[in-house]
């Protein structure tokens, strides 16, 4: 008998599987569950993007592209970033087309973190940062954010966690799971702290197109920040292209040079069909994106209002497609709440603590669903809350 425990990497076996998994398994065994648990758009990818992919299949050979991605796509990514942020990246030296934003995060952390390096992770946040830091023998250091601050990163909280070993700050805004954003005014003092240090920033702006009421502002647009920032973005959320697996990172050339080696050895090049389609997305789909944003906005207001009406305090999220209501008034923990909600009313939402300890007392609700679906889910949640009101 092979003892696999002795053979497998100690590091990876010690890493916990995603906290979401448990609910996924529970939900999968039940009939008639309606979900508000998904982190991907319900919209179909705009037709012109799909058509560009079909044309590519018909007319082109589907071969590897350059490691960093098609030159023409990198040029468009660079131009798009400049339009949105005013910051220029050299398409030949400062851009890599990656397999989703996820790979860009992985490349960044692997290119930067040495054993023992501390990585500041703003929480609650997407689930992948800490495990990758741990894989690199780095030390994830959570920086908590709070409802009273609309889940923004406060400069004092950041300052408190900085040590001599701090290497990287991960800044995930607009935020999954809270829907919180950072405005220019919020970012200025953060940048001010960082400018006098050697700390790098990984800014994960995958939800940058999905903001409501005001345009997204990137930290790279602030003076002196481009040189210390790795900018990550992608096509999944803005263009409803999750399954196409395409994202990108933009950063100073010395960082890109190292990250490109990891990408080259690990991936070769990102999916070719998706890359051609992505050019269409960046050049011709502004209108489609705005239409999706406007639809999300209606749902966002509807769901936020719904939770507040039920007495579950829910700050008004300004980005992404999640609301993050506080469920402390029910006397349940996040996990209890989610488990009982799915068992009793068959509605799946995600416990906030799956996104870090500071998410305890909250649940993540996705509104990437039709209004009809959201109305039925809220109806069921209302029954649940009324039955458990203290």
């Amino acid at each position, binding site marked *: 008998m092979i003892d696999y425990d002795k053979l497998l990497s100690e590091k990876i076996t010690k890493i916990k599987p995603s906290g979401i998994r448990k609910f996924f398994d529970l939900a999968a065994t039940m009939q008639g569950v309606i*979900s508000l648990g998904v*982190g991907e758009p319900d919209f179909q990818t705009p037709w012109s993007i799909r058509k560009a992919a079909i044309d590519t299949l018909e007319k082109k050979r589907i071969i590897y592209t350059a490691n960093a991605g098609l030159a023409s796509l990198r040029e468009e990514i660079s131009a798009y970033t400049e339009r949105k942020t005013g910051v220029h990246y050299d398409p030949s030296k400062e851009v890599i087309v990656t397999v989703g934003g996820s790979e860009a995060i992985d490349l960044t952390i692997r290119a930067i973190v040495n054993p023992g390096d501390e990585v500041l992770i703003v929480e609650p946040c997407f689930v*992948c940062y800490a495990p990758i830091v741990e894989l690199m023998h780095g030390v994830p250091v959570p920086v908590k954010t709070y409802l009273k601050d609309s889940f923004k990163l406060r400069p004092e909280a950041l300052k408190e966690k900085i040590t001599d070993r701090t290497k990287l700050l991960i800044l995930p805004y607009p935020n999954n799971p809270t829907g919180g954003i950072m405005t220019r005014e919020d970012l200025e003092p953060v940048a001010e702290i960082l400018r006098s240090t050697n700390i790098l920033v990984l800014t994960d702006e995958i939800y940058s197109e999905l903001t409501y009421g005001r345009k997204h502002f990137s930290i790279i647009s602030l003076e002196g920040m481009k040189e210390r920032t790795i900018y990550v973005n992608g096509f999944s959320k803005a263009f409803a292209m999750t399954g196409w697996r395409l994202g990108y990172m933009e950063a100073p050339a010395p960082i890109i040079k190292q990250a490109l080696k990891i990408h080259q050895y690990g991936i070769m090049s990102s999916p070719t069909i998706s890359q051609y389609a992505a050019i269409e997305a960046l050049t011709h789909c502004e209108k489609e994106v705005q239409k999706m944003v406007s639809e999300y906005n*209606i749902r966002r*207001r509807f769901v936020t209002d719904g939770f507040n009406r039920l007495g579950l305090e829910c700050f008004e999220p300004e980005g992404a497609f999640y609301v993050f209501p506080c469920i402390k008034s029910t006397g349940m923990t996040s996990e209890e709440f989610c488990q009982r909600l799915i068992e009793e009313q068959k509605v799946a939402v*995600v416990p906030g603590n799956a996104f870090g300890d500071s998410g305890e007392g909250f649940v993540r609700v996705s509104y990437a669903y039709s209004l*009809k679906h959201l109305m039925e889910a809220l109806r069921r949640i209302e029954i649940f809350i009324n039955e458990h009101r203290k």
Partner: protein
Amino acid sequence: MKEKLIELLQQNARFTDKQLAAMLGTTEEDIRKEIKLLEEEGIIKGYSAILNENLADKNTVIAYIMLKVTPKRDCGFDELAKTVMMYDEVEAVSLMSGSYDLFVTVKGKDFKDIALFVAQRLSTIEGVLSTSTHFVLKTYKEKGIFIEDEDADERGLIAP
């Protein structure tokens, strides 16, 4: 807000004022006012249900009929269109560009019913040069609503 409100009402005219107010980030009072205004101005002409005719009533047949007509000297196509639209069987009438003039939607009990209506009523109207009748066999989408069931949500129940 007006445009968004119209869009939402077209999606579902039974949204409550409360729901509409939440969705558009305004008050119920404002919603009521705006709807009243839209009705008074005649922008909203009414509210109707969108049916899946197959399920609602097995004895309904819909046909689209293209009419070629001779416009009258003084009133163009209007008088003829008005004559056509007075029939109860006629659901909708539009003036078209292209090779036909009037596009008429007719509802009847069966194919024969509609065929007779076209032969006896429409084609005999003075000024009608020709008719071309097209029966609807199946409707997939109407007024932005999928008539047959939408594709099931293929996304997983829970994902980060």
